């Protein structure tokens, strides 16, 4: 390839860039593509959910939504970037309740999510399920917790990372039941599920999409569903609320800077509301096995404040701070 042809290619590329960016001049927000930070790695459930909704929402927003993965420090790297960004509405974050409401309670962070960010939308939530391998002797959650109470430090809890989405509901349950268990950390939910299947650890809290196939295959026994409601796929398994425990869902939430214009947040919320009537969206969410139990921003703000207090108590109990 001669140098002349290379320059020609560059020139064509430049012109294309100008043409494409030129068409993006519109009257009101959003005038240009929106960046959606995901503070987790590629291939996780947030990534998957985001790939679905960002491929459809441009129809209702009039602009592309570009996913930007910023993993690191259990979500803190991406969250810090979202808080630092200009509050012009062109940088949003797609995160979950433990990063948003719990992490700032554990350690000193250069940001306060409650002050800096406001909820645009809760996309959906995932309730983790308490389960054990079938060769374990416990038929119910109470039996397992009884064993744990009688044998301090013997019951092994495989979790997917400290203060994360499976650790926190498990820790809340154990602390309320007064069980002193052994916490075994795994890198994410997958290896933790594998540890249960291999019999390395006693119990784990896994999400339905991963756990249900193993239950159907008769490899694991389900003991309880975190959260208030039973799951329609497994109507016999009691919920945390029925058993006297609290919380436990992972809320997948889209947050914006609190300083962003109120009108623009409304534009975003309206676009998300329309999304839930979209056939392709429904179809794809069903295919990836996620529910569509959304929550509007203002409603989630109330839940958010409540959960914050719950977590504050839990952290006080566990760390003694």
């Amino acid at each position, binding site marked *: 390839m001669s140098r002349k042809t290379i320059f020609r290619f560059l020139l064509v590329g430049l012109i294309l860039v100008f043409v494409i960016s030129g068409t993006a001049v519109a009257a009101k927000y959003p005038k240009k593509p929106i960046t959606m930070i995901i503070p987790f790695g590629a*291939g996780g459930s947030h990534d998957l959910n985001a790939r679905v909704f960002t491929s459809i929402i441009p129809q209702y927003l009039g602009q592309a939504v570009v996913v930007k993965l910023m993993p*690191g*420090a259990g979500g803190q790297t991406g969250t810090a970037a979202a808080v630092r960004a200009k509050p012009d509405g062109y940088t949003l974050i797609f995160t979950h309740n433990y990063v948003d409401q719990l992490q700032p309670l554990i350690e000193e962070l*250069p940001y306060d999510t409650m002050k800096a960010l406001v909820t645009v939308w809760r996309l959906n939530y995932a309730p983790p399920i308490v389960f054990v391998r079938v060769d374990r002797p416990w038929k119910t959650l109470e039996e397992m917790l009884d064993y744990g109470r009688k044998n301090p430090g013997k019951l092994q809890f495989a979790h997917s990372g400290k203060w994360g989405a499976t650790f926190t509901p498990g820790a809340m349950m154990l602390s309320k039941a007064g069980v002193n268990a052994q916490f075994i950390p795994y890198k994410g939910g997958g*290896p933790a599920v594998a540890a249960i299947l*291999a019999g390395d650890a006693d119990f784990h809290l896994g999400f339905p999409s991963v756990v249900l196939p193993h239950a159907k295959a008769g490899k694991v026994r389900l003991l309880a569903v975190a959260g208030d409601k039973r799951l329609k796929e497994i109507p016999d398994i009691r919920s945390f609320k029925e058993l006297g425990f609290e919380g436990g869902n992972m809320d997948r939430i889209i947050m914006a800077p609190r300083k962003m214009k109120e009108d623009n947040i409304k534009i975003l919320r309206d676009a998300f509301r329309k999304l839930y009537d979209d056939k392709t969206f429904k179809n794809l969410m069903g295919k990836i096995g996620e529910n569509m139990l959304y929550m509007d921003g203002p409603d989630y703000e109330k839940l958010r404040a409540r959960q914050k207090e719950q977590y504050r108590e839990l952290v006080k109990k566990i760390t003694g701070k």
Partner: protein
Amino acid sequence: MWDSFLEGAQLCLRLDTFGMVSLGLILGILVGALPGFTTVMAMAILLPISFFLHPLVGIPFLIGVYKGGIFGGSISAILVSIPGTGAAVATTFDGPALTKKGQGRKALEIALYSSVFGDFSSDILTLFFIGPIAIIALKVGPPELAAIVLLSLIIISTTSSGSAVKGLIMCFIGLLFSMVGQDPLGYMSRFTFGIFAVKAGIPLLPMLIGVFAIPEILGAIEREVPSFISEKVDLSKAGEKLRYEEFRRCFRTILRSTGIGAALGACPGVGQVVAAFVGYASAKKASKHPETFGKGELEGVAAAEAANNAVNGPTLVPLLTLGIPGDNVTAILLGAFIAQGLRPGPRLLTEHGPTVFALLVAMLLANILFLILGYVAVPIFARIVTIRKSILLPVITIFAFAGSYVFRSDPFDLKVLVFFGALGYAARKLQFDVSPMVMAFILGPILEYSFGQTVNLAGGNLLHYIFIDRPFATGIFMLIPVVSVLFALRAVRKRRKARSQNSPMKGGEG
């Protein structure tokens, strides 16, 4: 099972499957060759496309991106010393040296053939031994992983070149760097000195580009000699093709590395990087001329590339049989599977047997297409180094910086790049080899994590737990002294041989 295999094989003989696999391979090679763009990023971006395609078109398309991406990563590693991923690090030990000798095309070709061979054989192994591999995968828990990584570290470290003391120093520096940030078990910050940006640890990619590419660029400028290739384009030499004898010479190495890669691939959590290192180290160990390794040895490139590709087949097994992705790439494939209504897990093979076999056969086809496309692409890429140095060096510099930034769009990573560039340059001047540091940086955290988990699982009685409850781990731990003694004996024998050969002339030097 044979029936579903035959049925599956017929299912994937479709023109659109071939077309999309080829497209995926091309995209993968292009993205992989660009520093900073990882295969995982490319797959995540292209994932939604697969939602709208037939399962036997969409998923092979992503597999194509994956396979192409790994080879693309070795292109930049060989030609300009920028490893696109951790898996290509071992390729930078010999690749750039070959390029400097004007054998860039040969290096690329041996990389291609070894990659395809490693991939192809591991896919066939996976196809026939999916059951046994699934059992091994479940048997490998934290104690076994710790034992495997420890054994790998010993194999790798006993083969490093140059002064042993210098190697150890670099190894310790690497371990120290790997500890910066939150500890993997309790998430407590350590060695961060209150700097928030390093809380997530030192990012791997900017570090790799820093220690490998920057010294190369600075060295080329400094010496004012044609470092990448002679100033006046000598196309005939840069384009010299791999000869059959050269491939024959590498074949034993390729076979060995394929075996190592496939075995390590069956153990979840080990991964391509370790496989490439161990494959390289074993090739050097087995070679009659280990001194040529690191100075432009075709076998070195073959060893690393065959090993890291052979990992691919077996890593799919936990995904298919348990629904548990072993790494980011398989996690994205999981997304593609689920979106197609194929839920990987214990019942996938019984419910969708033909489709699963069709996918595995499609992987084999992808390898053949990969060979053809790679063969076409290699001469084009090989000519990159024939660009005049005054243009090429600034372009590489731009790519080094852009690649570090684009990885996670954090300006802090540029500082990391400059810091490790300076460190790599200083190390080169003082004749320290940076590769032990990089190996320790990558392997250290895996060892720390799996050992920490083991201690937790043991619940206070570590020896009893490992030696009574985990016979598999015990077996691997037992191998460590055996391997060490074997290596030591071999080294002594070699030295004695060298001495007896030298003594008549030089009088016992050595």
